[in-house]
């Protein structure tokens, strides 16, 4: 005990420098009472007391049997208790010895715990008797402590050497199977116990370094603290008992209360830091103080004579194996045998400390192994609903604590929505609903007479007409007037062929009683027909969708809103004797020129229909064009192979004469290239023709001309010879009297050409396509695809951005040159080949004429807003021409200023529509 006690005292010295260590005197108990506030002093005293107690117990333990008997008397039933007590008696002696030999430090701690332990033990063992025991506590203070210790030691011994315990303690065997189960539990704590044992060994072995000492002392301190805590609880009880018994001094009470307060304090300080545990981890360093083999299974050394190596590298030899006799002897002699455990590290027997035993005991009793832990500590409701002044936690509130929860909001909105939609019902609704359900409910057995019957297949079902209720005639006992007399029966018979004309479908009959009424023979038949009627005739109200033909037509403005446009035949210009192939209106709008198959060109006064002039053309006139230059009185006439430039000699006389002057002086030195000469040659007509017919220039072409057209300025004009291959288009200049062949290659059978009204563009229509050439750059600008077979004519809008094309396959195509190379609109208005198309110069009108004798006037509005597409509305069909040789209307032309249109046809007439 000496060195250990020294160590302990050394460690204590820090705390209690003045007091000497070791067990000194019994009388120090009195000191205990005298001691005051000073913690250290208290501790010191406690230590002393413990030692004294220890000694006391050893003494008393021998007499323990007596006590045990008493206890037995008190609760006979408790086997465990009795066992324990018996064990106690055996080991009391050991206890005494050990208290002397083994380390004092654990004892000092334990000595203090005695009262508390006893109380706890009692609780666990026989809670009913607590009060009784408590009464005895004072007297048997120490004995109790010993009881506990015995209990533990018994367990331990059982664990270590089963045989021993079994053999030695008959009662133990008798005791119970509980022990075995307890053993299992305790196995867990073995390690701890071992540790403790090591510690103890450590102390024994004196391998002390300062630091280690310190650590040890710390450990001890902790243990002390633990014991203090235990005190705290135990003393509370103690005080109770003292109070009850009235034995306790005031002083002792004071001390206890102080201890209590102190213990509490300590607990509080220890609790958050878990210092106890930390200290235990520290002990890992201490584990292998003597044996340096490390944490290896020690059975590796089973075959070796040594156990490991100490600090200085020397082998630690296995201690001598004691044989059974030795064991027995030691068992008999050594009072601590039951609590000695073999340390596998050292092979030494280690005496388990009281604390270890207590720990084991606790575990075996399903208690907290740490006896100091107060499981009944008052609950502090930190996280209560009360708002405290200071936060519990230094950490700032989480963001979600002040931001409304999105998921909750979603949930709420989901609920609200489903409430709105009626999927979810409010509780009030459900309550009402339940109430309604609980009420008696009545159902219509048959559908009502008025409401429409719901049928699965038939919508808008009309219920079948009800049968009439039976009247008096149907009665089995009808009044006399309902019965048929002879005449009525005769009538009935007569109507046999036409049953439906009968007033009644049966003959009313009279029976004396209902019993005599026979079965109704038509019953089945009538039911059957009725059923047939019901299901063969579903009687659905058919909803007929009325679609007016007009609704399907596109929305077009009312033609009346698009006035003025020509609507009626106003004038006829009669005089030609053959087809009138072409017409052209003078730019001023006073005269009209027409070319005919009767080989003449006629000039008409528009207002009166007077033929002002007739010019023999010498060939079939296929095209005629008035020179757009108002300063010149000229027109170009394409007659067979000749292109005649004629002065029609109408209009301003001054201009006529000036034109003649101009024409009579051909520019000199004009030399046409041979290539051109082969195609065309300019010729001044003879004087007679000059005077009589007004011919000014004749251009002899090499092929038959189809068309002649002027450039807007009136200087250039183009002629078309479809058969001329690559020379089919010629462009002539009047002022210089030159001709050009603009195209080197034949792109197809050229049908007609046009000059752009504003820009230097030239439209060339072949059979299928239209090419637009830039005359300045001499390149092709665009190619328009008509998707039709044969183009007959084209007309360009005065604005220049829209082109109207008529085809022989009955189509009229509207090209928006800005829009696409494909037609913007395809109008299939005519029933036959479209011969000619024309735009009006001022009004948004265009006219088309066809071989089906019709002239169709259409509205063709072009908006200055580039985003708005042209509006095309057919307005008026004018059909006044007459068919001749399958030809209808050849040409159509608008008056330059009035909304009038002229047409000429195969019936030799020219018509004016206004």
């Amino acid at each position, binding site marked *: 005990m000496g060195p250990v006690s020294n160590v302990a005292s050394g460690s204590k010295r820090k705390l209690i420098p003045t007091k000497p260590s070791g067990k000194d005197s019994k009388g120090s108990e009195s000191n205990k009472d005298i001691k005051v506030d000073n913690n250290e002093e208290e501790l010191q005293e406690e230590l002393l007391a413990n030692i004294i107690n220890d000694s006391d117990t050893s003494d008393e333990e021998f007499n323990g049997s007596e006590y045990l008997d008493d206890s037995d008397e008190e609760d006979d039933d408790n086997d465990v208790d009795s066992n324990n007590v018996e064990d106690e008696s055996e080991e009391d002696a050991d206890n005494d010895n050990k208290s002397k030999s083994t380390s004092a430090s654990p004892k000092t701690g334990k000595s203090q715990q005695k009262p508390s332990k006893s109380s706890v033990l009692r609780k666990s063992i026989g809670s009913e008797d607590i009060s009784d025991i408590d009464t005895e506590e004072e007297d048997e203070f120490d004995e109790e402590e010993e009881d506990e210790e015995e209990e533990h030691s018994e367990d331990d011994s059982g664990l270590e050497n089963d045989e021993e315990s079994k053999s030695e303690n008959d009662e133990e065997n008798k005791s119970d199977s509980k022990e075995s189960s307890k053993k299992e539990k305790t196995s867990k704590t073995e390690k701890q116990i071992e540790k403790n044992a090591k510690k103890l060994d450590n102390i024994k072995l004196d391998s002390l370094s300062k630091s280690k000492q310190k650590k040890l002392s710390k450990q001890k301190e902790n243990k002390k603290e633990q014991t203090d805590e235990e005190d705290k609880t135990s003393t509370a009880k103690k005080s109770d008992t003292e109070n009850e018994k009235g034995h306790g001094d005031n002083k002792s009470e004071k001390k206890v209360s102080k201890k209590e307060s102190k213990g509490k304090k300590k607990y509080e300080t220890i609790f958050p830091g878990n210092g106890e545990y930390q200290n235990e981890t520290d002990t890992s360093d201490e584990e292998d103080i003597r044996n340096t083999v490390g944490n290896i299974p020690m059975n590796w050394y089973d075959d070796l004579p040594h156990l490991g190596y100490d600090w200085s590298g020397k082998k630690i030899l296995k201690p001598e194996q004691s044989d059974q006799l030795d064991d027995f002897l030691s068992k008999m002699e050594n009072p601590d045998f039951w609590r000695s455990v073999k340390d596998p590290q050292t092979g030494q027997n280690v005496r388990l400390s009281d604390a270890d035993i207590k720990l084991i005991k606790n575990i075996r009793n399903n208690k907290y192994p740490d006896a100091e832990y107060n499981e009944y500590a008052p609950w502090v409701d930190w996280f209560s609903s009360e708002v405290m002044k200071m936060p519990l936690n230094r950490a700032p509130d989480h963001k979600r604590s002040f931001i409304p929860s999105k998921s909750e909001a979603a949930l709420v909105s989901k609920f609200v929505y489903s409430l709105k939609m009626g999927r979810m019902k409010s509780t009030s609704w459900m309550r009402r609903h339940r109430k309604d359900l609980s009420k008696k409910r009545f159902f219509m057995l048959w559908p009502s007479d008025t409401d429409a019957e719901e049928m699965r297949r038939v919508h808008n079902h009309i219920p079948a007409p009800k049968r009439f209720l039976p009247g008096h005639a149907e009665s089995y006992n009808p009044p006399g007037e309902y019965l048929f007399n002879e005449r009525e029966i005769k009538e009935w018979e007569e109507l046999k062929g036409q049953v439906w004309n009968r007033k009644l479908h049966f003959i009313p009959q009279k029976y004396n009683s209902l019993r005599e009424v026979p079965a109704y023979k038509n019953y089945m038949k009538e039911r059957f027909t009725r059923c047939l009627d019901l299901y063969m005739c579903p009687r659905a109200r058919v909803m007929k969708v009325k679609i007016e033909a007009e609704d399907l037509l596109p929305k077009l403005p009312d033609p009346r809103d698009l006035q003025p446009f020509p609507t009626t035949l106003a004038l006829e210009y009669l005089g030609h004797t053959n087809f009138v192939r072409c017409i052209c209106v003078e730019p001023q*709008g006073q005269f009209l020129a027409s070319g005919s198959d009767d080989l003449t060109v006629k000039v008409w006064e528009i207002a009166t229909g007077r033929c002002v002039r007739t010019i023999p053309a010498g060939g079939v006139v296929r095209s005629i064009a008035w020179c757009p230059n108002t300063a010149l009185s000229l027109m170009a006439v394409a007659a067979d192979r000749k292109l005649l430039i004629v002065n029609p000699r109408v209009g301003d006389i001054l201009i006529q004469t000036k034109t003649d002057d101009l024409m009579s002086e051909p520019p000199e030195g004009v030399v046409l290239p041979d290539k051109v000469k082969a195609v065309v040659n300019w010729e001044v007509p003879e004087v007679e023709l000059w005077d009589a017919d007004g011919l000014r220039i004749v251009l002899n072409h090499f092929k038959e001309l189809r068309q002649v057209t002027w450039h807007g300025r009136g200087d250039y004009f183009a002629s078309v010879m479809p058969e001329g291959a690559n020379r089919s288009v010629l462009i002539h200049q009047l002022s210089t009297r030159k001709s050009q062949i603009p195209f080197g290659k034949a792109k197809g059978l050229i049908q007609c050409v046009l000059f752009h009204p504003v820009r230097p563009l030239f439209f060339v229509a072949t059979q299928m396509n239209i090419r637009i050439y830039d005359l300045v750059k001499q390149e092709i600008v665009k190619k328009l695809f008509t998707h039709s077979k044969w183009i007959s004519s084209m007309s360009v809008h005065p604005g220049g951005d829209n082109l109207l094309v008529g085809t022989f396959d009955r189509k009229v195509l509207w090209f928006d040159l800005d829009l696409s190379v494909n037609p913007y609109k395809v109008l299939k208005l005519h029933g036959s080949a479209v011969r000619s198309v024309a735009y009006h110069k001022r009004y948004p009108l265009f006219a088309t004429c066809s071989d089906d004798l019709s002239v169709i006037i259409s509205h063709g509005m072009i908006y200055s807003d580039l985003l708005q597409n042209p509006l095309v509305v057919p307005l008026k069909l004018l059909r006044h021409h007459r068919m001749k040789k399958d030809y209808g209307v050849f040409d159509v032309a608008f008056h330059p200023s009035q909304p009038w249109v002229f047409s000429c046809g195969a019936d030799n007439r020219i018509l004016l529509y206004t």
Partner: protein
Amino acid sequence: MAEDENAVVEPSEEVMSEVQLKFFTKQEKYAVPDTVFAVQGNLGVSGLNSLINEILKEASNVDEYKPVQFDFLVAGELLRTTITSFLESKGVSCENVIDVEYLESTPTPSPLDCILHDDWVSAIDFYNDWILTGSYDHSVHIWTRRGEHKLNIPGHGGPVKGVAWLYNDGSDAAFISVSTDQTAMLWEWKIESNSIECIHVCRGHERGLEAVTVSENKQQFATGGWDTLLKIWSADVNKERGGGDETGGDEGTTSKKRKKEYSSASSRTPLITLKGHKEAISAVQWIATDEILTSSWDHTLKLWDAELGGMKSEIVGNKSFFDVHYSPLSKLVITASADKQIRLYDPRIKDGAIVKSTFSSHKEWVQSVRWSPIDSQLFTSGSFDNSVKLWDLRSPKVPLFDMLGHEDKVMCVNWSDYRYILSGGQDNSVRIFKTKHQPKSGDGKKSTSQ
């Protein structure tokens, strides 16, 4: 009570319904007692006529009562159908008493004569028994009222589109002719010697002329044509007479020769040229001392101030105007335009073109319209449907008379003398109809004095 009757006889209303009429007249000699007559609804003009005549006959107590033809004015319009249908069309209730004004009907014009030309007659004027016609054969003709050809005056280089008497005092006469050869010619004609002389050739128009009119004081005349200009010329005959020695009258000389002669006749330049029309002027009329009314193809009628030389007002129509005539009696303007209708305008209304009424019966373009010189209600029209019609303002749907006879389009009509309606047409003829109606006491003198 009338209502009750109506209710009862409703099914056969068409046949049986009675209308209560009250007759009155502004001609006192035909006055009838102020009583309400219930007459059958299906009664027409003839029925009412016989009724009134009966009453008058009874009232006159003279045996040799001569029945008078009356016209009946109901709600400001001449009755032309049965009473009920007329009232229905006007939307007037048959149940009230209807005031019917009756007036002596316009006497039927009778065809008097037909004067044949060599070519279309495009212009005609009448004054003091002398008929002046312009023809497409480039010449002007003078005829007596009886149809006797007095003179053929070739001189123009194109169809003569307008002629107008300047004065005619029985021995001396002067007239103006305009032609598409862009000239107006001022002629002096000595009736007794039947010698014609072109005093002036008025050059200045740039295109063919269409119309001519003489001012009220006979000092000026105005012409209009295809050059859209209205030109006012001096009509002074004597001014430069000495300048031109041409003493024509020889019919033997060829027209060409004549033309040359005339072209050497003194030329005259316009006093005023009025620009404003955008298209051809189709008709001009001098309507007051300094006001000229023109109609044009550009859909407008324009009123010009001849003194100041500017446009006074404008009426915009929606069709080209071919002719216009102004009546000093009613101060209204009737127009012929490029459709079948005759429109009545009031030039005094400044805001826009308010067509007061439209007269539609013609089947083709109407080429010429003329007011009656003595009756503010009557006018005549010539159309391309070969007919000349006599209209009453109060009967817009049905003309009073259709004067048939022309075999081709009528190009011009004239009613400057109240007795005769003359019309010329493309059938190369001038038809003369005699109107029998007399000038009313007040109006007649005025118009005859013209």
